[in-house]
């Protein structure tokens, strides 16, 4: 076959040394227990890596300097979201890539809020390798993956040197870049509880640009209606970049509960959510504008959630 010479290893004259990557040892465990014991053995000198799109940049920028990178990519488990017909739960392994979530038909049809969010994270190239668990443990205030999952009441499971534990995702975030993970612990699973009947949801990443950009604001709304298709029986409003960590607008949710969902109540819910938000000035936008937009976008996403309920049930 011709063209073989193209692939022969060669030394370039004056090959430019890659200046930015620091030397490390890459370890490829096949099980969680193996990964955890590797971490225990190397302590602070070790870091876990899944897709690597964040940690490799941190290493290049000298913001992290691990001597050992422990890969979580080869630990066996389902590589896509799994919906259980029996329990009505959605199970997402933490090492599932954003692209697998984006292209999942189950997610697109049953959890449109999650589809809305993941399809605009990074780029195709990033989504093909970056994992949902990685998005969560980085704990940035803007984490697009976290907001819809919080609005869906997601629970997470964590494995570590001391065993397993579960918690709700909302309380996993402690501050910018900080989450409730102890040394050696791994976020392994995300579990979304059954969604009520007559539920609609929507997420908007609001910013100047959709791709390759952090949002100015992220707004996710999940609405469930009574049998009359008017009265709200459960509302979830989750906000990104509206506080140091992802947050829920609890008072706005409570306001909607038991009320008919219409332009007036959504408007009011938006105002309450804006008051609850703890927005601040940043390079991407000023606080007063963000607060205004929380109101506008909560209303807009509420409208979209409502529209989706009617679409799924063949009404209007």
């Amino acid at each position, binding site marked *: *076959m*011709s*063209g*073989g010479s*193209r*692939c*022969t*290893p*060669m030394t*370039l004259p004056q*090959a*430019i*040394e*890659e200046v*930015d*990557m*620091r*030397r*490390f*040892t*890459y370890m*490829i465990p096949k099980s969680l227990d193996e990964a955890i014991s590797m971490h225990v053995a190397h302590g602070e000198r070790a870091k876990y890596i899944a897709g*690597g*799109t964040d940690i*490799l*940049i941190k290493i*290049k*920028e000298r913001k992290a300097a691990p001597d050992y*990178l422990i*890969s979580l*990519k080869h630990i066996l488990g389902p590589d896509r979201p799994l919906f259980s017909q029996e329990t009505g739960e959605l199970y997402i392994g933490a090492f599932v890539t954003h*692209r697998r979530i984006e292209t999942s038909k189950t997610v697109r049809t049953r959890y449109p809020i999650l589809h809305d969010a993941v*399809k605009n994270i*990074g*780029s*195709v*190239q*990033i989504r*093909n*390798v970056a994992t949902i668990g990685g998005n969560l443990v980085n704990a940035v205030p803007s984490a697009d993956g976290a907001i819809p999952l919080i609005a869906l009441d997601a629970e997470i499971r964590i494995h570590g040197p001391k065993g397993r534990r579960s918690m709700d995702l909302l309380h996993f975030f402690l501050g910018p870049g900080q989450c409730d993970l102890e040394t050696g612990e791994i976020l392994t699973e995300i579990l979304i509880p059954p969604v009520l009947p007559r539920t609609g949801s929507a997420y908007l990443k609001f910013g100047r640009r*959709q*791709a*390759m950009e952090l949002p100015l604001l992220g707004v996710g709304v999940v609405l469930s209606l009574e049998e009359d298709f008017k009265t709200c029986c459960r509302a979830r409003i989750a906000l990104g970049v509206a506080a140091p960590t992802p947050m829920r607008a609890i008072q706005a949710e409570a306001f909607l509960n038991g009320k008919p969902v219409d332009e007036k109540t959504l408007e009011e819910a938006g105002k309450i959510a804006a008051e609850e938000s703890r927005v601040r000035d940043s390079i991407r936008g000023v606080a007063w504008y963000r607060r205004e937009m929380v109101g506008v976008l909560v209303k807009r996403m509420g409208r979209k959630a409502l529209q989706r309920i009617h679409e799924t049930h063949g009404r209007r």
Partner: protein
Amino acid sequence: MGRDVSFVLNGLETHIRIEDHWTLLHLLREELGLLGTKEGCGSGECGACTVLVDGMAVNACLYLAAEIDGRTVLTIEGMEAPDGTLHPLQRAFVKHGGIQCGFCSPGMILSAKALLDERPDADEEAIKAAIAGNICRCTGYVQIIESIRSVTRKAEEKVKVMAWQADEET
């Protein structure tokens, strides 16, 4: 300390000893001399280093060489047929002015290939989403999108880019 990896690079079985901290981009450019894959930002923002791993577009600058063991990698050098005939996508970029300075072209073409392999009939929206991670500083986006669209229209022509590979199998 090195590590041996085996992978299929542009249709050829390749075995090589690598270092754990090498990126796929480093391996391709500095060790294998395949200079078609470009380094722009080095941090996954610009897409100039886009290559296909098992058919999926990835940023080679953020992909560890250690991770390609057992996989298939396609770079721009693997797009043309062994006799030098350009792939339909490459011809389209030439014909429609999708290339200006050329720095983004390899990445653009590979992102387009990943899209068309999955959706040969991709519409303009899908094309824009597929190349959202590829930046063109000449801002020739209109021509680039037109180049890709021109290939989608000929869906019956079997856009499967590795046509020469399919020939070998038959």
